[in-house]
């Protein structure tokens, strides 16, 4: 039987809460985006929120996977995840910056709101978490 540690439970809780918050930000961003630019606003807000969700979740996933490996594996998983994420993000931004169906400011501000919101969720979760020093 496998048991889930407190840290794993925290990471899964943060993933769920972060996804909910980013969904909420995507909804609000879509409404605001619709009023700013009825044609391009909604897809821009949805893409911005999705980017934030994917990239904040990938960090969590890399730590979750790395925890199960040796120290060297942990380093490889976290730093490798960071490298792949940054290269992927640069390519996606490079593609979207030239795309016709994007309203830049709507996408940018939705992305920033989603990232800041997810950081707030992370901080609250860590501050309220009870991680025992030794887990048996």
């Amino acid at each position, binding site marked *: 039987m496998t048991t889930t540690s407190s840290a794993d439970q*925290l990471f899964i809780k943060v993933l769920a809460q972060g996804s909910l918050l980013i969904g909420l930000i995507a909804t609000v961003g879509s409404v605001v985006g619709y009023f700013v630019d009825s044609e391009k606003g909604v897809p821009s807000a949805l893409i911005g929120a999705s980017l934030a969700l994917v990239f904040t979740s990938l960090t969590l996933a890399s730590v979750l996977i790395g925890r199960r490996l040796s120290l060297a594996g942990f380093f490889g998983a976290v730093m490798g995840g*960071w490298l792949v994420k940054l290269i992927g993000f640069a390519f996606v931004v490079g593609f979207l910056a030239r795309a016709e169906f994007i309203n830049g400011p709507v996408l*940018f501000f939705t*992305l920033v709101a989603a990232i800041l919101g997810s950081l707030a969720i*992370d901080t609250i979760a860590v501050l309220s978490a009870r991680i025992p020093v030794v887990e048996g």
Partner: protein
Amino acid sequence: MDITNIAELSGNIAVVGYGLAAIGPGIGVGLVVSKTIEATARQPELASKLQVTMWLGIAFTEALALIGLATPFIFA
């Protein structure tokens, strides 16, 4: 007087921006992870606590990179 170019650069200055947005957080994340590994090697029983704190450090550091890389959407 003739003006002679001895060196010429061409390209987009935004590429330099991409580099700057990546290098700072890259160093930051590397430091956070390496210190966590160092601390885990010293006190393996604290691994869970250290990894949670590390992950929060990474989240804050990489937020800067993501925002920096997304600036072409408003400055382009």
